């Protein structure tokens, strides 16, 4: 898969029947190449949004500093730990399937989804607090960014969980094994992206002053 131009080598994506054969070769990227296009697109969206945040912050430093203090840092930190932990279990799931342990793979994915649910609950409490104070997108520029960035990420956590669930279902149907587990790696790659975005988003919006 060492392809100089990934875009034009699209058709060299292993099809499911081929995957089993080439699994032993070292691959450039884990999982299906298609998910990496998707991940790239997602990261691009977040990057532009973070850039917009940075530019606006530079223009309104005092406003951003003032309202940043109103955010619940503890909840944000706990959420960071939840997501990183869930990513750890996703890694364990990939290792399990590489060792042909389907059951362990499924269990680890369930635990990862569990931590993801924890993230959503904690974040919902944070939103509840803010909304009940009457804060909305139009309150000020800082809250506009805080809400739209974290909400957009929130939806990605949900989508990531849907993808992990789809992997669980296919694993239960016995579709994955040590020799054929591209799907597990694909789901894991996406989940790590969701994690990665949060690891940037949390310090950017909650901490950095």
């Amino acid at each position, binding site marked *: 898969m060492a392809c100089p131009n990934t875009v034009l080598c699209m058709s060299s994506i292993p099809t499911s029947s081929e995957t089993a054969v080439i699994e032993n070769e070292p691959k450039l990227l884990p999982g299906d190449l298609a998910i990496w296009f*998707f991940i790239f697109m997602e990261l691009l969206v977040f990057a532009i949004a973070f850039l917009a945040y940075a530019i606006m912050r530079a223009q309104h430093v005092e406003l951003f500093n003032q309202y940043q203090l109103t955010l619940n840092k503890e909840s944000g930190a706990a959420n960071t730990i939840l997501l990183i932990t869930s990513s750890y279990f996703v890694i364990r799931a990939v290792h399990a399937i590489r060792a042909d342990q389907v059951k362990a793979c499924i269990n680890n994915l369930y635990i990862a989804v569990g931590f993801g649910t924890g993230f959503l609950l904690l974040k919902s409490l944070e939103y509840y607090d803010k909304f009940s104070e009457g804060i909305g*997108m*139009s309150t000020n520029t800082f809250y506009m960014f805080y809400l739209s960035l974290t909400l957009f990420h929130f939806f990605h956590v949900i989508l990531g969980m849907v993808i992990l669930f789809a992997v669980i279902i296919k694993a239960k149907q016995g579709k994955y094994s040590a020799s054929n587990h591209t799907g597990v790696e694909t789901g894991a790659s996406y989940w790590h992206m969701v994690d990665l975005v949060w690891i940037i988003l949390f310090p950017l919006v909650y901490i950095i002053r």
Partner: protein
Amino acid sequence: MKYQSQSIARLYFIAAIALFIGQILFGVTMGLQYVWGDFLFPAIPFNVARMVHTNLLIVWLLFGFMGAAYYLIPEESERELFAPWLAKLMFWIFLVAGALTILGYLLVPYATLAEMTMDDLLPTMGREFLEQPTITKIGIVIVALAFLFNIGMTILTGRKTVINLVLLTGLTGLAVFFLFAFYVPDNLVLDKYFWWFVVHLWVEGVWELIMASMLAYVLIKVTGVDREVIEKWLYIIIAMALISGLVGTGHHFFWIGTPDYWQWLGSIFSALEPIPFFMMTLFAFNVVNKRRRNHPNKAAVLWALGTAVMAFLGAGVWGFLHTLAPVNFYTHGTQITAAHGHMAFYGAYVMVNLTVISYAMPIIRGKQANNERAQVIEMWSFWLMTVSMVFITLFLTGAGILQVYLQRYSEAPLPFIVVQEKLALFYWLREFAGLVFLVGLILYVYSFFAKGKEVEIVEDLDMKKAVTS
């Protein structure tokens, strides 16, 4: 043609092209009215010509989409259409309703049409592009439901492929989003929200799914490339189209009394809208380069590649040109919008329809491809229409830039109508390009009747390699 019921598409395609001709005739009429204000006045005033021009476009594209669906869904699902009689019945209902509506626009004043069709019972008229009388709108919903039922049952009881499922999703979205046309809030800002939920979510959302699946289908057929490869592309393209397109609706909410966060959301997300179109271009060229056969219908391949390029230019590049809020502050509602509208509609939706028609029509008429002379004529029509559309777009962009400067940017801004007079040269040039487009369209129609030497059957490159090596 594998299934008898695919031939129903023929009716839809013929109607589509007939209405397309009507659309262009009204287009060149109003193009002239830009510089010769009372041309055909009072018989066909500018506002009526514009309404007919845009409504015919939408209706013929819908005819094209439906025809394409009726053609490709039986083949993809590997069964006859669920209810061919229903497809025929709906065709006539849609055609008659469409024709009556257009006649209504042309023959009576719009207010009288509203009275005649009892718009006061459920007022939905008077909104740009959605001017249809309420009864026509109800008719559209009935036709759409019957159509979705018909193709839905065909897919559900037949083979499910990524192509027919994406197409079904797109067409369902088309019908669902149209329902917002029935909700007309009194508050003008809310009214615009719901109006855009139809207009934007159609052309920058679900129609992209329809377009991508139609293009993918033709590419599979003319290149013989593995379905799995094409399906993977399709997934990425539609995911990107939806992510960018849905929130991208915000680029219409910049200056209409909506909260200002839309300037951020709209700018960021719609700036990404060119990506799926760019992917479509890469996809089409990549697939054609890796083709495993040389399909005799070279014109259809040309249309398919042309669609990908022109959709990227028209929808992607010309859209991006004025989508960022700080730029749009100056360009909003100028001729730059018109330039984008023309090339985007032509490049994406007109051309994808012509691609499918060009591919399917010869097969429906019992041959793999039109004869060589007919194809040469068709390729001429391709270049005439496409190049003239590029010029229409460039002239309108020139007019738009000048308009922005004179009317909104200069030290001493001039009134709208004074500026319009200064743009006359651009409008004359645009009108000339429009006439060339009409010639191209006439050639396109003629190509289906042109006689000549029949072409050979499919040449399989793998087989050829195997034989020669």
